[in-house]
């Protein structure tokens, strides 16, 4: 039984995929008389099944040696591509998180999307999304993970594009796909190169290979950068971070998944690839630089947003930036823990945000206020989620960061400074959001705000409890990937002061957030010019999008137009000129009335006949010789 449950672990993503397929009668419109909700129930049921199977397997593998499942996918010439699944506490644990959050998000969607007749399509995409995420958790093969990351790109496109008739969705879905695709193609290049250099594409083989294979520094640096690019897009890291902002046009239950486990999937692959990054100092430096720039930049962007979804989603990039730094430093255990505590808390925050949006039909925080006493589950979810993300109360991230700065890991002052900064800004931002949304006098749109129905409240409360319990993991099992406890810089002044300072930074953020002046009522911008400039700069994401429009986008567009012009007038013209003689010769061909077709057949046949005779003539001449 044990072996059966473990050997059939690949069924778990299969259930989700099956759920996606079962929605087809409704999503394709074959069933029209009755409604699409059975599609949702199928998916919920199959996700429960995934969860049960996954949990059983997780309990069974706990404390056991990892196992592998190998599928031979493709044998071509000298290439033997296998898809390997790893059954280990880490992979099954990751799967647990995915099924749990996915289950809750799908239940949440039952309430959030109840008015949407395209429910079947939504659930088919969620099922597909979930299947890809589960398979990534299991995958031990770069090829498989790459393929699955592309599946995620595709599902993001589908889910962001769910409300396809809405104008901003049209561009958002496209940009999300293309941005992620840039990363994917670079990753694909890295994958092809790795495979060509003879590396097996299993992560475990890659680790061995990277230790023995001699590569020139340039090649290994390029290789590392290519492999980083994929997760950079997935995790919404600078310079591929803007899609996450735009992706907020999609339905909220998908945002729950995206901001928690989907971005984590990219980072999960990054963690698995970490041995390759040790090949070149450039790639690990790149990780640290990308992570730092993103962490600082996006936490600043987050505090200036007026849209509630965006105010929270930018902090996702910031936290994933910290994960990038951790991977760059080789501290993969910390990276994994950060992903875990972040995913749970962020999913919770997004549920809270979803219930706010569905209640007040609005996302502009300036138009909200006074919700707390009427929406207990939502308020609790927001508070617990936020508190669990910042280092101030002894909840999830607090303990993860505590492990990070406990002296076991090498933590340099600059990293510590970034941590302080991100913590303070995020605490500031969350406090600001909390005040805008939950405190103060109700405004027009929040005047009547009954708490959401049980389909949304139940997952929210469940996840609140899970978030409160989540510190158990960093406290009890903080080393998932390393076999031995590292001991880095021991007991220095920095280490001793680290946690108090971090808590202090969080406290400062909260105090500043609580005292800063709020602007309510529509979109009221600051009156002070300098202040307005800063707010706009941050609210519009440092105008990076504009910058892209002016550079990459317009370059491609101009280039393509020039090429098309060149094609039409130069190439076509020139090549036609060469063939002009023939055109002259075939003047009769120009008339195209079909009634004269016989003469055309004749012309062509004569032409071919002539060629043939010519050929015969030549050959005969030669054979006579």
């Amino acid at each position, binding site marked *: 039984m044990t072996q059966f449950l473990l050997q059939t672990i690949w069924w778990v993503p299969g259930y989700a995929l099956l759920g996606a397929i079962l929605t087809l009668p409704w999503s394709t419109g074959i069933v029209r008389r009755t409604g699409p909700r059975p599609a949702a129930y199928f998916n919920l049921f199959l996700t429960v099944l995934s969860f049960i199977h996954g949990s059983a397997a997780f309990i069974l593998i706990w404390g056991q040696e990892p196992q592998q499942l190998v599928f031979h996918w493709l044998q071509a010439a000298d290439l033997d591509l296998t898809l390997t699944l790893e059954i280990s506490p880490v992979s099954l644990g990751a799967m647990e998180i995915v099924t749990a959050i996915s289950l809750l998000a799908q239940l949440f969607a039952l309430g959030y999307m109840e008015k949407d007749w395209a429910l079947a399509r939504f659930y088919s995409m969620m099922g597909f999304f979930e299947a890809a995420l589960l398979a990534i958790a299991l995958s031990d093969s770069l090829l498989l993970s790459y393929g699955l990351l592309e599946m995620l790109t595709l599902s993001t496109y589908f889910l962001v594009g769910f409300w396809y008739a809405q104008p901003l969705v049209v561009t958002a879905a496209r940009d999300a796909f293309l941005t992620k*695709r840039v990363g994917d*193609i670079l990753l694909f290049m890295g994958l092809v190169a790795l495979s060509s250099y003879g590396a097996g594409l299993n992560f475990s083989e890659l680790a061995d290979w990277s230790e023995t294979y001699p590569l020139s520094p340039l090649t290994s640096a390029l290789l590392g950068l290519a492999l980083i690019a994929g997760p950079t897009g997935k995790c919404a890291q600078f310079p591929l971070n803007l899609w996450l902002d735009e992706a907020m046009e999609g339905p909220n239950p998908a945002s729950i998944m995206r901001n928690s486990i989907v971005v984590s999937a990219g980072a999960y692959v990054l963690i698995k690839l970490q041995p390759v990054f040790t090949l070149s100092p450039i790639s690990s430096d790149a990780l640290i630089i990308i992570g730092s720039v993103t962490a600082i930049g996006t936490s600043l962007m987050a505090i200036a947003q007026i849209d509630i979804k965006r105010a929270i989603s930018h902090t996702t990039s910031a936290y994933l930036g910290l994960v990038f730094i951790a991977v760059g430093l080789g501290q993969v255990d910390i990276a994994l823990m950060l992903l875990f505590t972040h995913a749970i808390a962020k999913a919770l925050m997004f549920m809270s945000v979803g219930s706010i949006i569905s209640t007040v039909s609005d996302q502009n925080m300036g138009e909200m206020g006074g919700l707390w006493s009427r929406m207990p589950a939502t308020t609790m979810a927001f508070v617990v989620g936020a508190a669990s993300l910042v280092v101030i109360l002894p909840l999830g991230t607090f303990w993860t960061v505590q492990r990070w700065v406990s002296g076991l890991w090498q933590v340099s002052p600059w990293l510590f400074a970034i941590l302080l900064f991100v913590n303070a800004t995020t605490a500031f931002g969350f406090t600001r959001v909390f005040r805008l949304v939950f405190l103060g006098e109700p405004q027009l749109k929040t005047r009547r705000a009954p708490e959401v129905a049980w389909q949304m409240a139940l997952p929210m409360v469940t996840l609140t409890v899970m978030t409160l319990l989540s510190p158990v993991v960093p406290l009890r099992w903080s080393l998932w990937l390393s076999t031995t406890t590292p001991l880095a810089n021991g007991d220095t002044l920095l280490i001793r002061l680290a946690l108090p300072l971090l808590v202090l930074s969080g406290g400062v953020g909260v105090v500043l957030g609580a005292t800063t002046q709020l602007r309510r009522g529509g979109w009221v911008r600051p009156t002070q010019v300098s202040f307005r400039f800063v707010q706009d700069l941050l609210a519009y994401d440092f105008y990076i999008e504009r910058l892209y429009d002016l550079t990459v986008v317009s370059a491609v567009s101009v280039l393509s137009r020039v090429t098309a012009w060149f094609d039409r007038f130069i190439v076509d013209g020139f090549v036609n000129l060469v063939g002009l003689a*023939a055109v002259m010769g075939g003047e009769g061909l*120009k008339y*195209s009335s*079909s009634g004269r077709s016989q003469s055309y057949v004749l012309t062509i046949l004569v032409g071919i006949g002539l060629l043939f005779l010519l050929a015969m003539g030549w050959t005969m001449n030669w054979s006579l010789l």
Partner: protein
Amino acid sequence: MLSVLIWVPLVGAILISLLPDKPATSLARPVALTVALGLLVWTTVLGVQFDPGQPGMQFTEYLVWIETIGLNYHLGVDGLSLPLLCLNALLTVIAIWSSDRTILRPRFYYALILLLNVGVSGAFLAQDLLLFFLFYELELIPLYFLIIIWGGPQRGYAATKFLIYTAISGALILASFLGVVWLSGVSSFDYEPLRSQTLPLGAQTILLIGLLLGFGIKIPFFPLHTWLPDAHVEASTPVSVLLAGVLLKVGTYGLLRFGVGLFLDAWVYLAPWLAGWAAVSALYGASCAIAQQDMKKVVAYSSIAHMAFILLGASATTRLSLLATVCQMVSHGLISALLFLLVGVVAKKTGSRDVNYLRGLLNPEKGLPLIGSLMILGVMAGAGIPGMVGFVAEFLIFRGSFPIFPVQTLLCMVGTGLTAVYFLLMINRVFFGRLPVELANLPRVQWGDRLPSVALALLIIALGIQPNWLIRWSEPQIATLVTDYGQGKALRESLPIAAVLNAPNVPVAVPPSVLPVAPIEN
């Protein structure tokens, strides 16, 4: 066995044209469809009977035809041509199925489609250079008529342009064929004996360049491609399906069979340039596609970009890359056929292919939702998203070529990335957004319109998930292209390149000749 593929459609075509005038309207289509379906079944039977483990030609038929000029009726099939024959049979059925039921002059039309099938099958089967040439030229007559009679408003221009380009292509190919026979002093145009010729590199190179230009027009590569977008735009949907799906493949098939097969030394000598040409062509096609406003032109230019990958794979001449070219031919055949079919449905229902005019067609009640969904699938397959056959083909091409030509391969991969750009621009404009009132009264889409697209889509996914079904036919066979003859020189030429490019670990880069061609058990 193989003659059936040539003579049955020929007889069918004659039969259709001889049908009595009155009921012709009702009979031509069923007869043509029956013949095409019969051919599909027969091709499947051939596929089942075919022994992938045995390298070389199978089911060969040999008949001396005109001895004086060395022309023989010599047919055969191997792992390179079998998948293409299947593709041809399948797409002919689909083309006939999706032809307009109320088409003008149906007898002539369906006869021409079958004739086209004859030409293509013959070209894939011919084991004689001159015979190949005959079929190669034969196929352009029906295509010319199909465009000029049933085409769009500019059909005269497009058809004439097509005819002239292809005629030049034919002349160049014929010249090369004559040249090789003449120079190597063999007494017939039979393919096999010619492969053992050992012409000096210079002569080989000149002959190969002739072939390259000839087939380069047909495939087509930049800058010889301008006839293709015009032809596609003017051709009706079924003709576009056949043109993109199989006719272009005759060019790449010829390049592999004769370019690589006959002039391996020169091929390897020119290979870096060819790979560069492939990269330029791929990027150029992609770049042009971005700026197009006509859905058919977008797909047409994407064809140019994707066909270039075949040249990349062929230029690397590793076993893997050559195998990959077969995959890419099948994959591109299926995907471009699907896309042209869908664009055809859109154009038929809306009367337009203009991406600036069409909008919001995903609308489930008033639009074309299923067509839109299939289009998204087709586009994603074209962009090389894993899980579909496009990814398998492209991955194998890039993986096979990278060790030999890393820079060119990376450039081609950029081209793959651009595929997503132009296709997504098209999809998002045409299918996303709000359906405007002008488009709110579209006719219904019947299941008959959807059926061929659904079938192709399922095939694209099936082969993407289980590519072994596609590869097992060609895998041991493809080796014979480069291993039987001339391998010594190929080895000499290609080793230094490989050795320079990746020093320590070269199993892939070594031309297949050094690897024992072990028949793989199936």
